[in-house]
């Protein structure tokens, strides 16, 4: 398996990268960690004539707190996310999710931006970002714009990114202290994409759920933000009846493909099972 030929560019700044992408147009692809793109190039499913490697752009790396938000540079690797004390304290679900992505080697190279921007429905970060209400900073020839993760994904590999634009940072509102969270992922083995996965973040007070958000991975051609399912949890004690209702609402919005992970009906049901388990674990973690 050998990729086709291409020219390689390694800009040092976002402005240079954008300028290159604008100049080279549709024939160019930005390269982040490369573990989605390079295998596609090796099977010649992708044949870009130019690769614009974003790895040398220092501005795209790092995790910082800004106002009530956590801002993560797009080229921050999953390995870095896992090791971040700041995230461990404020957004532990990112670490939990990152540990379930691919395998150790790939997590050194794989980036949060690449995972989020690629538009692969199998990736884990998109549903998590939707669950967390994150927004993406897209930098293009006309400057920076922000698009909510919940509005970014259009179809498999189709996103709101315009030609010449790069996802440069992800801004995540910090959930309240004491929130409950869980990412439940069913997969065949380490290194596999999810058969189905669910991200849940919620808050509890006086035994009742006061807020909830749910993201679902790999059960449609885009990540799914299960708004109605989450609403069905709010105001309940997250008892069986409430979970049954949320699961039914979540299952209703899935439309998974059949593949080696199982037929569509199985993956829909697994989205429900993962949601139920994530909600139960989130509840157990929430301060009441």
């Amino acid at each position: 398996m050998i990729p086709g030929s291409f020219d390689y560019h390694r800009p040092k700044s976002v402005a240079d990268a954008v300028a290159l992408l604008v100049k080279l147009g549709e024939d160019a692809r930005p390269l982040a960690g490369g573990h989605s793109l390079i295998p596609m190039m090796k099977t010649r499913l992708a044949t870009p004539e130019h690769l614009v490697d974003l790895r040398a752009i220092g501005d795209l790396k790092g995790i910082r707190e800004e106002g009530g938000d956590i801002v993560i540079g797009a080229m921050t690797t999953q390995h870095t996310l896992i090791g971040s004390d700041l995230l461990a304290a404020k957004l532990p679900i990112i670490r939990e999710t990152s540990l379930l992505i691919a395998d150790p080697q790939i997590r050194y190279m794989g980036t949060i931006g690449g995972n989020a921007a690629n538009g692969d429905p199998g990736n884990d970060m998109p549903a998590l970002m939707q669950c967390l209400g994150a927004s993406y900073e897209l930098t293009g020839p006309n400057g920076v714009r922000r698009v909510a993760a919940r509005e970014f994904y259009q179809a498999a590999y189709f996103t709101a990114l315009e030609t010449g634009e790069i996802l440069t940072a992800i801004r995540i509102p910090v959930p309240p202290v004491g929130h409950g969270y869980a990412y439940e992922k069913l997969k065949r083995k380490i290194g596999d994409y999810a058969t189905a996965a669910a991200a849940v973040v919620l808050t509890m007070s006086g035994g009742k759920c006061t807020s909830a958000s749910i993201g679902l991975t790999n059960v449609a051609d885009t990540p799914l933000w299960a708004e109605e399912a989450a609403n069905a949890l709010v105001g309940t004690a997250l008892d069986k009846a409430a979970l049954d209702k949320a699961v039914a609402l979540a299952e209703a919005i899935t439309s998974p493909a059949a593949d080696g992970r199982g037929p569509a009906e199985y993956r829909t049901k697994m989205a429900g099972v993962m949601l139920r388990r994530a909600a139960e674990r989130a509840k157990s973690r929430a301060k009441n």
Partner: protein
Amino acid sequence: MAKAHIELTINGQPVEALVEPRTLLIHFIREQQNLTGAHIGCDTSHCGACTVDLDGMSVKSCTTFAIQANGSSITTVEGMAAADGTLSALQEGFRMMHGLQCGYCTPGMIMRSHRLLQENPNPTEEEIRFGIAGNLCRCTGYQNIVKAIQYAAAKINGVPFQEAAE
């Protein structure tokens, strides 16, 4: 496409070369540098037989372009033994604990274990299994690989190695 000039360090030695941008790091290492320890097993970044250490990261060199490694420092399995030929603790552990059979996954397995022990010098069995989950072995069933890494960890930490009772 024009070839590009790259400079990097491999096993402590400076290396300069011309590469096509599409040259995969594994082919650069094996064919241009004649370091044939790392192998290709799956072509799709699942098996880890091609794992090398790149700037302190375990990297699958079949899914990395050589040109991406420009300016980097790489260690391959050939760089693990001491200059006098003494095996590293991991190499010794793999032999002592029968952590290999056909030997094809071994260089990648050793390079991954090397980085794992750098980051976590005293891993539990569960941490070892999770830490080497990017490397497939078709021969050993992993049990003796886990022991090999535990052996190496004990040796590096200067404590006696005790096999866990089965």
